[in-house]
Structure formats: structure tokens, C-alpha cells
């Protein structure tokens, strides 16, 4: 298997996020971290390779490879380094000033182009990024690549060239299967992502991390970025903070007071 894991560096999910004057998320003034949900995708790739490796380990000698791919500013290398320290083999960052303000359509186009160029047969993603939360990029990748789409996987297995997942949807528990190549997105209950070991952190410093410009990927600057985005923000307003309301201490009638409040609001 030649696995690509798509990751994103996002503002720390504990941070207070605000909009910049350009109608985009202000990323400059917040801590940036590897998107939580992408760690499950990295862990899934590592587990799949370990299960299919003669040595039981990922890396050289496993007969498989894992590449993390990200699109973002130069500092996204921190997120890629973290993936390398978890045990991934190499990393590609597509970084270009012209990419700033790209929408999901442009993001999926850039990632799909890099995936095609790399000849990957399995693409693993998290279900969404914790900043934009659209949850559409995995499906867009499958559409662009004409790969099978197996999303929201709660378990994943590859036997030969067949990938199987199970997932919980509003319809019930579904078992899905497809021949590779495929795009899989994984939910957070699929595994417990490992912490980078000291050995992993040291080894990651020697692993290949390539930064490519748009020209190197083969995409015209005019096709991406905020000027090519197919949706635009008209305005954004901080919502008035929810004022804390009435707060009572239960002295035996807290439930009754609560019920009275609900009745007054005609909620019961």
C-alpha cells in the first residue's frame, strides 16, 4: 500500500477564534496545532501498515509507505513533523502565498493533484477540521480522484486490494467495501492515537519533508486562493455573548424552581 494521510494545521480548539477584517479566520494570533481529528487518520495508517508488515512495524522493511500531505503556510511543517514523529515515513507541504483564502473546492483540487502525482492507492483523512468544520474535503477528494469513498469509518481493514470499513450512520451500522484506490475518513472512536516517542521525535528530524509551490504541483495560481473562491463572506459579527441568566443554589426546591422557569418560558 502507498498511503497518503491528509492533515491540516488549525488554531488550537481551546483558543478563542475570531474573524479577521478580510472575512477569514484570524489565524495569526492563535496557537496552531495538528487538527485533533487528523491524529486518528495518522494512527489508522500506522496500524494498517503494522498489521500488514513482516516486521510488525511501519517504515522501511514494511513493504508499505505512509506520506502525510498538507496545504498551508510554512508553519504547517510543525504539524507534519508531529506526524513524522508518530512514525509516518515522509511529508509533503504544498505552500504558496497564492493559496491564502482557498475554499474547500480549491483545497480538494490541490490535494487531489498531489495525490495523483504521488501514485497513492489509499487516502486517509479525519472527518473534518476543527476550524472550518465543513466535513466535505474527503468526499470532494473521492469525487475528483474517482476513488471509492468510505467515510466515517469506525474500523478499517485492508485485505489484499480490498478495503473494508464499518460505520455508524443514521441508517444503522453499515459494512462497506471497495477495491483500492479509495478515500477513507475515520471517526475518533476508531483508535487511540499514539504519542510520539523520544526515538520517534529524533528519527523525524531526518525524515524527508518536501515543500512544494503551486507551480511545482502544476496548478495555476489563478485557480486557487481567495480570488478564485466560489463563495464569499459579506460580513461577520460577534454574536452578543449569552449573558449568564438566573443561577440558584438547590436547597431542596431547585428542581421546582427550574420547572417554574420552564413553565414561565412556556417550554412545558
Amino acid at each position: 500500500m502507498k498511503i497518503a494521510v491528509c492533515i491540516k494545521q488549525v488554531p488550537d480548539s481551546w483558543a478563542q477564534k475570531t474573524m479577521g477584517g478580510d472575512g477569514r479566520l484570524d489565524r495569526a494570533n492563535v496557537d496552531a496545532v495538528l487538527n485533533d481529528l487528523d491524529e486518528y487518520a495518522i494512527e489508522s495508517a500506522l496500524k494498517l501498515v503494522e498489521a500488514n508488515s513482516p516486521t510488525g512495524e511501519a517504515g522501511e522493511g514494511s513493504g508499505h509507505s505512509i506520506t502525510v500531505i498538507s496545504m498551508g503556510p510554512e508553519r504547517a511543517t510543525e504539524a507534519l513533523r508531529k506526524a513524522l514523529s508518530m512514525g509516518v515515513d515522509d511529508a509533503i507541504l504544498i505552500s504558496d502565498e497564492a493559496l491564502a483564502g482557498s475554499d474547500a473546492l480549491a483545497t480538494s483540487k490541490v490535494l487531489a493533484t498531489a495525490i495523483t502525482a504521488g501514485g497513492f492507492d489509499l487516502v486517509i483523512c479525519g472527518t473534518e477540521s476543527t476550524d472550518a468544520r465543513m466535513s466535505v474535503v474527503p468526499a470532494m477528494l473521492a469525487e475528483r480522484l474517482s476513488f471509492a469513498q468510505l467515510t466515517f469509518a469506525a474500523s478499517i481493514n485492508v485485505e489484499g486490494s480490498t478495503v473494508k470499513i464499518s460505520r455508524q450512520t443514521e441508517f444503522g451500522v453499515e459494512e462497506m467495501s471497495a477495491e483500492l484506490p479509495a478515500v477513507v475518513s475515520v471517526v475518533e472512536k476508531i483508535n487511540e492515537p499514539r504519542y510520539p516517542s523520544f526515538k520517534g521525535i529524533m528519527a523525524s528530524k531526518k525524515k524527508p519533508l518536501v515543500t512544494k509551490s503551486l507551480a511545482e504541483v502544476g496548478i495555476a495560481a489563478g485557480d486557487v486562493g481567495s480570488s478564485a473562491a466560489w463563495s464569499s463572506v459579506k460580513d461577520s459579527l460577534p454574536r452578543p455573548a449569552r449573558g449568564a441568566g438566573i443561577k440558584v443554589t438547590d436547597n431542596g426546591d431547585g428542581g421546582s424552581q427550574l420547572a417554574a422557569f420552564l413553565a414561565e418560558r412556556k417550554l412545558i
Partner: protein
Amino acid sequence: MSEVIILVDSVAGKVSKATAELATFGKKVGSVTAVICSSDSEALLPQLSTMAIDRVITCTGVDFEKHSTGATAAALAEVVNSIKPAAVLIASTARGKEIAGRLAVRCESGIITDAIDIDADLITTQSVFGGSTTVHSSVTHGTPIITIRGNSIEAIVGSSTPTHEDFPVSYDGADKAVVSSLAPAVKGGRPELTEASIIVSGGKGTDGNFAPVEGLADALGAAVGASRAATDAGWYPHSFQVGQTGKTVSPQLYIAAGISGAIQHRAGMQTSKTIVAVNKDADAPIFDVADFGVIGDLFAVLPQVTEAVTAKKG
């Protein structure tokens, strides 16, 4: 008059409440054409006559359930290319957003997800960053593809006599994944989390005992939710998790019991119309967003509320 397409959302042969809401939003813009992409189309069709729908198109010739979202997006793209609507509205479910994403690629159109309102000019309202910011946006290229969150509008209910036509589609096999087996979800008597107008959620404070949470939910006809702490502990299934990595809900009333209200949880419920919190810890951040908070033990407070609700129903 402009025509708006809505994708009929259904589970197990039943049209969801979200579909009626999409039709109601569509009416703000123009006439509403509902598109059915389902193996249950015959069962779904009569259910649409209580909604604000002018025309129904049933896509035929494809086993939609087996092929999941790829086939639905392909069929919808054929309809869009044929009738050139002013916009396509889809329910903001995991499945709906995937279909919308694939459709946007196919139709070379802009996409906006998780809108909570649209106006006659198709300007959308979204509530982002855990409800702390309201954003107005519009699609600037192609056919606007907009997914709308459930419970964002009071659906128009009445009777209509939509025209109906079949629309044969072919499946180009772009998505080769197939659903090989399905164990249908066991339906409890409670409403769906994302559709419910009242939700009672339990967290760490339940210590694994959801009985008082479920008791109050049943008295109120409400759905049950859970915080990530509760689902990670295995006390309640992950599919009931409310929060940043779970479901985003916006009910009329949200009751948080034994939930501290970490920012990740608030991100999933902060747009609820009325928020009520019960927590032993007077400093729990959930009280910062609660319209009414009780500092106390949920095991004492919740049963008292349940009793009062039951008494009131008489």
C-alpha cells in the same frame, strides 16, 4: 419565477422533518422542486404532500442505498444540469454534506455548509466558532449549493398537490464503494437528536447513571444527548454525543445535567434557544451560557423537575 431544488432526506422510508424545513426555506426564494434519490421512493412520495413543495422529481434507475453518496450526487448533478435551478438546498447531515461536496465539484459550483438561514437573495447566515460569531455569505459561482442545519426554521405544514415526474439517471460508477450489509439502527421511542425540539444531556456528573436524564427526557418528549466525557467513558453511545466532534444541535430547550461545559461541548449546543444547566460545581463554565442554572446534585434536581413536568401534564 426561480426554482429551488431540495434533496429529500429520509431514513428507513420516512421523510425527515429536515425535508419540510428545506422546503420552507426554498419558498423564500421561489418554487420548490423536491428530488428523491432513494430506493424507497414510492413510500416517500405521498409524505411530501404535507410540505411546501410544487414539483417532485424521482430519480430512477440506480440502487441509491447500495452506492451511498457518490450515486446520489451524480443523479442530482444530472437534474441540476437539466433544470438549472436557482439553488440546491440539502440537509446538513454528515451524508447531506458529502453529497453537497461532491455535487459542488461536479457542477463547478460554490458551496456553503451549515447555514441556519437564507434570504430571498440566497444570502446565507451561519453561526461559527461555537456560536460566538454570525457570518453572512453567498455563493459567487455556479449554482449555489447550500446545506442547512435542522431546526433552523418552523416548517410550513399544510397540503399541497405537487406535480410528479420520473427522471431516469445512469450511474457512472465514480464511487465504487458498496454497502455490503446494514444492521438497521434500533429506534427507541425518543426523537432524533438533531431533530428534537428539547434535548436533555448528561455528562461526567451522571457517573454513568443516565436514569434521571432519560426520565426527564421521556417526561418532556425529548431526545437524550451526552457529553464527550460520558461517551468516552462508555456510558452512552458515541452517536448521542453533542459537541465539536459530535452532533451540533440547536433545540428550543437544551438541558445540560452534570456537564461542565468545556468549549468543545458548547460549540455543539450554544445556539440552542434556551439553555438550562444543573451542576454541583458553581464555577462550571456551562453556567456562563445558561439562561437558568441550578447549583445542585442532578440526582436530586432532575427527578423533581420530572415530577413537576408530569404533574403539569396531568
